[in-house]
C-alpha cells in the first residue's frame, strides 16, 4: 500500500520536474546570540510541490522554515544573513515589509493555535486585516472556500459562530490551515503540523496537504520520516545546522548519497 503510493508520487514527480522555483535560498546563516544555528544553507523550493525538511531535533529545520517568512524577526537575538528570494525578490531587502511577505508565505504551527474567537472570525482574520474582501458576502465566500479547502466545511458549517477553541485537536489544526489558506498565500509553511495530533487526524491532514499541493508550494517540517515519504516530493535532510542532502524524496529514502542521511534514515542517529 505504502509502496504503491510512493510509486504513484514518483511518477507524478517526473511530470513536474520542470516546474519553476518559487523560493530560493543561498548561503543562509542564522545566529541566536552566539549560537550558530544554521550554517550556509542553499535550498530551492519548487512551485506546486511539497518539500519536506527532516532531521533530528535541534538540527535547525524549524529555524530554517521560519527564515522563509521572516518569523525570526519577532525574536530579538536572532540574526539572519545570506540571500533568500521569493519569485526573485529578496525577502530580507529593507524595502520589504514582513507583513506583506507573510501574506504571501503563510504558516501553520506545530500546536494548533486557533484564536479565542469564533470559527468564522478565525478564518476571516487574515482576509480582514489584508482587506481581501469587498463586502460581507465576499468574506463569507472566502471563509467557506477556505474551510472547504481545509476539508472542514462539512463538520463546522452549522456552527460557524462557535468558538474555535472548542473543536477537537485535528479540527483545530485544519482550522489553522483554513485560516492560513484564507489569505491566499503562494507558499504554505507547516511546522510539524501533525505532531500534536492522533493518527486519524494526522491522516486527514496529510491528505489535505497532498491536495494543497495543486495550488501552493508547501514546505513541511516533520519529525516522522514516514510522513516525509508519504507527502513530499522533495526532501531536505538537516543535521547540526547543516543542509546535508537535498533531493527527490525517492532518492533520499532509497539511495542517499551522504552516509549521515543513511544513518538517520536507518535510525542510527536522531
Amino acid at each position: 500500500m505504502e509502496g504503491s503510493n510512493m510509486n504513484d508520487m514518483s511518477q507524478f514527480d517526473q511530470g513536474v520536474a520542470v516546474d519553476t522555483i518559487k523560493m530560493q535560498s543561498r548561503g543562509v546563516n542564522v545566529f541566536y546570540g552566539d549560537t550558530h544555528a544554521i550554517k550556509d544553507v542553499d535550498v530551492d523550493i519548487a512551485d506546486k510541490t511539497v518539500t519536506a525538511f527532516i532531521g533530528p531535533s535541534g538540527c535547525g529545520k524549524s529555524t530554517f522554515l521560519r527564515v522563509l517568512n521572516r518569523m525570526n524577526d519577532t525574536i530579538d537575538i536572532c540574526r539572519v544573513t545570506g540571500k533568500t528570494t521569493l519569485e526573485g525578490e529578496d525577502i530580507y531587502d529593507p524595502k520589504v515589509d514582513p507583513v506583506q511577505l507573510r501574506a504571501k508565505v503563510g504558516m501553520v504551527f506545530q500546536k494548533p493555535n486557533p484564536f479565542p474567537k469564533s470559527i468564522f472570525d478565525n478564518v476571516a482574520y487574515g482576509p480582514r486585516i489584508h482587506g481581501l474582501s469587498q463586502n460581507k458576502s465576499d468574506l463569507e465566500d472566502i471563509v467557506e472556500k477556505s474551510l472547504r479547502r481545509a476539508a472542514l466545511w462539512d463538520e463546522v458549517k452549522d456552527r460557524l459562530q462557535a468558538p474555535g477553541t472548542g473543536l477537537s485537536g485535528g479540527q483545530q489544526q485544519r482550522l489553522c490551515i483554513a485560516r492560513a489558506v484564507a489569505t491566499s498565500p503562494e507558499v504554505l509553511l507547516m511546522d510539524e503540523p501533525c505532531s500534536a495530533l492522533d493518527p486519524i487526524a494526522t491522516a486527514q491532514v496529510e491528505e489535505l496537504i497532498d491536495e494543497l499541493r495543486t495550488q501552493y508550494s508547501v514546505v513541511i517540517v516533520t519529525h516522522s520520516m514516514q510522513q516525509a515519504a508519504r507527502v513530499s516530493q522533495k526532501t531536505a535532510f538537516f543535521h547540526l545546522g547543516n543542509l546535508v542532502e537535498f533531493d527527490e524524496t525517492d532518492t533520499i529514502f532509497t539511495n542517499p548519497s551522504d552516509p549521515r542521511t543513511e544513518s538517520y534514515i536507518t535510525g542510527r542517529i536522531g
Partner: protein
Amino acid sequence: MTDMPISTAPARSLYAQDARTKKRNRAESRFRTYGMAAVATGIIALIVLLTSILGNGLSAFRQTYVSFPVELTAERLDPDGNRNPEEMAAVTTFGYLPILAESFAAHLEAEGIETEMGIREIAAMLSEEAPAQVRAMVLANPELVGTTIDAQILVGGRIDGYFKGRVTLDSAERDRNVTPEQLMLAQELADRGMMETRFNWEFITWPDASGSRPEAAGLGVAIIGSLYMMIVVLVLALPVGVAASIYLEEFAPKNRLTDLIEVNISNLAAVPSIVFGILGLAVFINFMNFNQSSPLVGGLVLTLMTLPTIIIATRASLRAVPPSIRQAALGLGASKMQSIFHHVLPLAMPGILTGTIIGLAQALGETAPLLLIGMVAFVREYPDFLSTHSNTFPLMGDGATALPVQVYSWTQRSDPAFVERASGAIIVLLVFLLMMNLIAIVLRRRFERRW
C-alpha cells in the same frame, strides 16, 4: 538543483508597499506611539511628583538663625542667686523674652544698624520658640547665668520665609505677622553676616511645635513613633506571618477551612486600609480601652494590615524551594518539621525577609488607619515607651505620632510655612522607604538562587 527556472515577475511585488499596507503601518506606528506616550506619562508623572515634593520640601532642611551676644542677667533669671536649677525653673519663658529682646536691640545699636522700629517689633523677628530655647540652655547649665553668651537664635517663620523666597516685601505689606521694615532689617543683618540660613538638624530631632511657630517644628517625635511601630510590626508580623505560611504551605490539608483561610488572606490584602483603622478603633480602643494614639495600637493595626503581604511573600519563597530538598531531608530520617525548620526555612529566608521589608515599607507610609486611632494628636513630649502605669496596659507607651500622620497634621495648619515642613517630612519618609527598598533589593540580589 539549479536546473529549474526561477519564477519571476510576481503579480504583487514585495518591494512596493501597497496603499493598504502603508495605512496599516501608519496605524501600527500610531499605536506604538500611544504605548510610548503612556510609559512616558507614567515616568513624567513620577518626575513631576518628586520634583514638586523636593522643590517644596528641601528648604525645610535649612533654617535661618541670627547670632548676637545674649546677656543672661542674674537678677532676672536667678533672683535668689544660688544657681539652683529647680528654683530657676520658676522663671518661665516669659521671663526670658525681655532679655532676648534687649540683647538683640542693644546689639543692633552696637553694630550701628539704625532702625525706626521699636523694641517689640525688633523682638517679633525672633521665633516665639527662642526664649524656650535659651531657657533650656540655661537650666541645663546654670553657670551661664550672669555671663554673656554668643547665641544663635532661631528667627520667626516669616523672616525665614523671606530668605527662602516664600515671603517678599510685597507680600509683607498684606501680612499682619511681618512688616517690610523687619524684612529690610533682616536683609541688612544677613548682608553683615549676622543672620544666616544653615542646615537644620533640628528639623529631624525636635518635636512638633504649635501652629504659630512653624520654624521650630521638627520630626523627632514622629520618627521615634514610626520606629516604635515598625518594631512592633516586625516583632509580631514576621513570626506570625512565617508560622501561618509554613502551616498553609507545608501542613494544611486541602479542605474547606484551608480554602477559606486562603481566600481570606487574598481579600484582606485588598481591604481598604481605613477599614483596619475602624477595626483598631472599635476593638483596641473602644473595647479593650487601650490608650488613644498609643504607638502599640498603631503597631497592632499595621501588623494586621501587613500580615497578608508577608504571608503571600513567604509562601511564594517557600514554594520556590524545590521538593528535592525536602525529600533529601526526609530520606535521611528527619521528621517533616525538622526538614522544614532545618532545611527549607533557611533557604527561603532571603525571600521572606525581602517580603517583610516591603510589607514594613508599606506600613511605614500608611496614614489613614492611624488617623482613626487618634495618632493625629498634637504631641510635644518625646514618648516614654516603656512607661508602666499600673492602671494602663503594660508596654503601652505614651501617645506618639508617626511620620505620615505628622505630614497630614501639618497640612491642616494655616501657616503656609507648614507646606514646606510637610514636604520636608515626606522627603524624610521617602528616604526611609528608599533605604528599606534598597536593602530588599540587595538581599534579593545577594541571595537569589536558581534551582
